[in-house]
């Protein structure tokens, strides 16, 4: 269970949000909405522990995420607004590296299969430099297929640059994770048909 209490975010002189709180139980989806610059990415980075909140606390199963350290990071799958893929490596190599680091059971074959599921069949062995924006996003999203055991997914604009088919694929993956008792948090500007029985929306900015 993820609990946020009284979160405040100051960026320079600007206060992006204050006194923000929520409780997420297994199987719940949190959709963070808000205009550009309203602090969505900052909130997600806080929830990952990349950014320390100016005030407030974030608890994972009752313990502060800062004190949990690696134990928390092992439960977390984060997709930033950057794809975190290396241009000079192929999609398969990227996936092998990221999933080995995440301690997922990944092989060359399973990596190829994951990429194929996201519509990258035939592009697995190309340097990702030559892929389009949407294809790079798919390559980054393929990581999620190895992170079922991660109880918390934090996804920053997962649907950006994706075509309609890929949006449906990713929505399906997210729905599956929610069905398996995972918590998913994402930001988006588009209407996305994710099947989520327990959905919370959070609107940032006044």
């Amino acid at each position, binding site marked *: 269970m993820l609990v946020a209490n009284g979160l405040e975010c100051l960026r320079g002189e600007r206060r992006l949000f204050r006194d923000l709180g929520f409780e997420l139980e297994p199987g719940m989806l949190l959709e963070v909405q808000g205009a550009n610059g309203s602090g969505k990415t900052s909130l997600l980075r806080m929830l990952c522990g990349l950014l320390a909140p100016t005030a407030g606390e974030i608890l994972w199963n009752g313990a502060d995420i800062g004190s949990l350290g690696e134990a928390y990071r092992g439960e977390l799958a984060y997709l930033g607004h*950057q*794809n975190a893929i290396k241009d000079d490596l192929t999609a398969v190599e990227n996936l092998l590296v990221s999933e080995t*680091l995440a*301690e997922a059971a990944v092989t060359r074959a399973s990596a190829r299969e994951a990429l194929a599921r996201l519509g990258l069949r035939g592009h697995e062995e190309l340097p990702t430099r030559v892929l389009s924006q949407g294809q790079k996003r798919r390559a980054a999203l393929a990581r999620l297929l190895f992170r079922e055991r991660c109880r918390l997914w934090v996804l920053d604009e997962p649907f950006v640059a994706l075509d309609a088919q890929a949006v449906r694929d990713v929505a399906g993956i997210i729905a599956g994770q929610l069905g398996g008792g995972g918590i998913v948090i994402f930001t988006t500007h588009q209407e996305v048909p994710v099947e989520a029985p327990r959905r919370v929306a959070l609107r940032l900015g006044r």
Partner: protein
Amino acid sequence: MSAPAPLAAFACVLRRDLLLALRRRSDLATTLFFFVIVVSLFPLGVGPEANLLRTMAPGVVWVAALLASMLALGRLFAGDYADGTLEQLVLAPHPLGLLVGAKVAAHWLVTGLPLVVLAPLLGLAFDLGPRALGVLALTLLLGTPTLGLVGAIGAALTLGLRGAGALLSLLVLPLYIPVLIFGAGAVEAVANGLGPGAHLSVLGALLALAVFFAPWAAAVALRISLE
């Protein structure tokens, strides 16, 4: 997975960075050429006076090695920072210091080790004797990893700043001074007929200290830079 998890993570980052270096060989060539050119400029500028060159050689080669490793430092974290992979490294369920250590190790293998190999060849242009050449290579072998490790702290602190390159050199070059003194000192000692043992021991101690502390300091600096 056969290897224990932290070792597997270390090997994974090391292999990734070596692979990336292999795919961008031109980046490495710049560092090496820089080193070769700076060192070769001195005999050309000073003139063919063997005694003077022999006296200068250790200092010149070492200063050039410092500058070359400075030049390469900028790339240590910058690429990972730009494409978001650094965030993923920080969020990986492993001690960040270990992963930073792997990155520095890969960085040294592609930018430091070639300097060690090249230095004796360049030393020939300075009329150094065989024993001095051997000690020169040995000091670089012990010293350049320290440069990379200490430099990693600076590179992590200046990550994402404007004018990071100049700031990095101001921050890191003063910290390189002990390595420079003992590295060049060992070669001078041999040239003067003394043993290099004491100097080499200090270099080894500096390296041990850096291996132990620098990755963790750099990890803390990275976390701050990413905020």
